[in-house]
C-alpha cells in the first residue's frame, strides 16, 4: 500500500510543482526583493537604489503619520470586521431557512455587493451629505441635529464602516450555503431536547459553522486591512486629520505620490507581517476545534 500511496503522491506533486515554482519565482522572490528595497533609497524612478541600512526603519519608528495610519487601520479593523461579520452571519442564518419573500430579501442583501466600489463611494458621498443626505434627514426625524460626517474623525471612521457594512454579499452567501449543508436531522434532535432557536444557534449552528466563520473572519480581516481601500480612498482620502488614512492608502501615497518607494516597501512588508500574525493567531485559535482537524 505504501508504494501505491507514494505513486499517488508523486502524481499530486507533479501537478503542484509548477505552481510552486511559479509562486516562488513570481511572488516569493519579488516579495523578498521588496523586503530588500525596504533598506534602500529606491524612489521608483530612475536611479539604481543604494543600500541605506536602517535609515528607513529609523524614520518609520519616528513617523507620526504612520502611527496615525496604524491607529486608523486598527480602529477600522476592530469596528468593520465585527460589524461585517455580524451582518453577514446574522443575515445568512436568518435567510437560510425558506420563508416567504426570503428570495427577494436574499437578493436585496446581495445587491450592494454588485455595486462597483467606486460607485458605492459616490453613493455614500451623497448619503453622508450633512445637509441633504438621507442619513442626517433620518436623524432629523428623531430630533437629532445630524453630523458633519466626514469632518469629525470619529464620525468619519463610523461612516466608512457604515459604508462597508453593505457589500457583504460574499460572506452572506457563504454562510447561507454552509448553513444549508448542515444536516437538518441534528436540528430536529436538538429541538426535541428542548433547544429553542437561540439554543440551536449557540449549540449547533455556531459550533458546526465554526470553521467557516473563522475563515470568513480571516478573509474579512485581510480584506479590511488591505483591500477595501478603493471606497475609503474615494470617500475620505485620509480625511479628516488622517483619521481614515488606512495603511494601504498610506502605502499607496508613499509609493506613488511621494516617490517613497523604498519606504512603501518597508511599510507593506510590515503590513504583510502584521496580517500574517493576525491570521496565524486566528487559525491557531481554530486548531482547537475538532471540526478542522
Amino acid at each position, binding site marked *: 500500500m505504501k508504494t501505491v500511496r507514494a505513486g499517488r503522491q508523486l502524481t499530486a506533486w507533479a501537478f503542484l510543482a509548477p505552481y510552486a515554482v511559479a509562486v516562488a519565482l513570481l511572488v516569493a522572490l519579488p516579495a523578498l526583493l521588496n523586503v530588500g528595497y525596504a533598506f534602500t533609497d529606491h524612489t521608483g524612478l530612475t536611479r539604481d537604489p543604494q543600500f541605506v541600512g536602517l535609515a528607513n526603519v529609523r524614520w518609520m519608528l519616528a513617523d507620526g503619520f504612520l502611527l496615525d495610519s496604524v491607529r486608523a487601520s486598527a480602529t477600522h479593523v476592530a469596528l468593520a470586521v465585527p460589524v461585517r461579520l455580524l451582518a453577514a452571519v446574522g443575515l445568512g442564518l436568518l435567510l437560510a431557512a425558506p420563508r416567504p419573500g426570503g428570495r427577494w430579501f436574499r437578493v436585496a442583501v446581495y445587491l450592494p455587493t454588485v455595486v462597483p466600489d467606486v460607485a458605492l463611494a459616490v453613493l455614500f458621498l451623497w448619503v453622508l451629505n450633512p445637509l441633504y443626505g438621507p442619513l442626517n434627514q433620518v436623524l432629523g426625524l428623531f430630533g437629532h441635529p445630524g453630523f458633519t460626517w466626514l469632518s469629525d474623525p470619529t464620525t468619519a471612521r463610523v461612516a466608512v464602516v457604515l459604508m462597508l457594512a453593505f457589500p457583504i454579499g460574499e460572506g452572506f452567501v457563504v454562510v447561507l450555503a454552509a448553513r444549508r449543508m448542515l*444536516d437538518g*436531522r*441534528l436540528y*430536529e*434532535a*436538538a*429541538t*426535541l*431536547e*428542548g*433547544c*429553542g432557536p437561540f*439554543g440551536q444557534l449557540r*449549540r*449547533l449552528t455556531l*459550533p*458546526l459553522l465554526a470553521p467557516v466563520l473563522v475563515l470568513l473572519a480571516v478573509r474579512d480581516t485581510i480584506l479590511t486591512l488591505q483591500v477595501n481601500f478603493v471606497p475609503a480612498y474615494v470617500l475620505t482620502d485620509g480625511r479628516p486629520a488622517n483619521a481614515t488614512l488606512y495603511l494601504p492608502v498610506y502605502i499607496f501615497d508613499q509609493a506613488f505620490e511621494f516617490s517613497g518607494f523604498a519606504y512603501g516597501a518597508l511599510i507593506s512588508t510590515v503590513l504583510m507581517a502584521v496580517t500574517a500574525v493576525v491570521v496565524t493567531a486566528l487559525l491557531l485559535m481554530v486548531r482547537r476545534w*475538532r*471540526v478542522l482537524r
Partner: protein
Amino acid sequence: MTGRGAIRLESLTKTYGRTTAVDGMDLDVRAGEMITLVGPSGSGKSTVLRLIAGLDRPDRGRVLVDGRDVALVPPHRRAVAMVFQDYALYPHLTALGNLTFGLRVRRVPRAEADRRARTAAERLGIADLLDRHPDEMSGGQRQRVALARALLREPSVYLLDEPLASLDAPLRLATRADLLALHRELGTTTVHVTHDQAEAMTLGDRVVVLDRGRVRQVGPPQQVYDEPADTFVAGFLGSPPMNLVAGGGTLGGRPDVTLGVRPEDLALDAEGPVEATVEVVEALGSEAVLLTRCPDGTRLTVRTGPRPGVRPGDPVRLRPDPDRVHRFDTATGRRR
C-alpha cells in the same frame, strides 16, 4: 386518561409529494401505555413518530396530547424524547457531549449532568466510549448513545424508532429488559417502532399494525397474534409467517374462505390429515423450519423442535391444530 402523556391521533394524514405516508390514522394511546408500531418498510411508522414529535406538520387531522391539540406547540416545547432511526448524533460532540446536550439545555449543572450521563452510559455499556466522537464508534455503539440520550430526557412521551435494531442478540435482550423495567418504573407513555417479532410481542402493552399509512389492527400482542384481523396482519406478524391457503385446498374449507395456520400449529404427525414432501430444512439452532410442498403444489411452512429428524425429500404428514385454524374472507381478506 389520568396520567401524563396520553396521545390521541385523529384522522392524521401526511403526504410527501405523491406518496401518502400516513393516511387518515386514528389512534388512542393511554397515558403511561407502551405501544408498538409494526408494519412493512415504508408503511409510515417513522412518519407517525415525527408527526407526534411535531417535526412535521400533518396535512390533515390532529395530534392531541393529554386532550389538547398540540398543533400550536413548537417541537422544543413538547416534552418528547425521540430515538431516531439513523441516530442523529451531534458529530461535533463526544458521546458525553451528546448525552449531556439536552441536560445542559435544561440548565442542569455540568457536574450533575456528567454524573447522570455516566449512569445512563453504564447502564447501556458505553461508559468507556464517552470521549469518542460519533464517527469513532461502531453502529451498535452509536445506537446505544442515541438511546441513552433519549433516556436522559425525562419527557412525558418517548418515541423510539427501532432503538435496538443494531444491537447483537444478548445485548438486545438485556436492553429490552432494561427498557421494560424503566417503563414500569417511570410509567412514561412510549411509542416504539420495531421490526423484531420478539420485541413486538413483548415490549408493548398493545401493538399497532400499519400498512401503507393505515392502521390494520390494534390490540394486545398475543391477541393480534392469535386473532389477526385480516390476511395482511396474519401474514405480517409471526416469523415464519402464517400459512394461508385459499379455501378448498389441502386444508379443506369453503372456496370463499381462506384458511390460515401458523407454522407452529402444524405438527409432524404420521397420522396427520395433510400429506406433504419436505423441500428444505432450515435448522435455526433452537428450532427448525421445514418448507414442505403438498401434492397440489401448496407450500406449507412447519416449525419443529431443533432436530426434527427429517431430510429434504422425505414424505411427511402434517396435523393442523384444529383450534388454531384461522378463517378469512377470500374476497376482503377480513377475519370471519
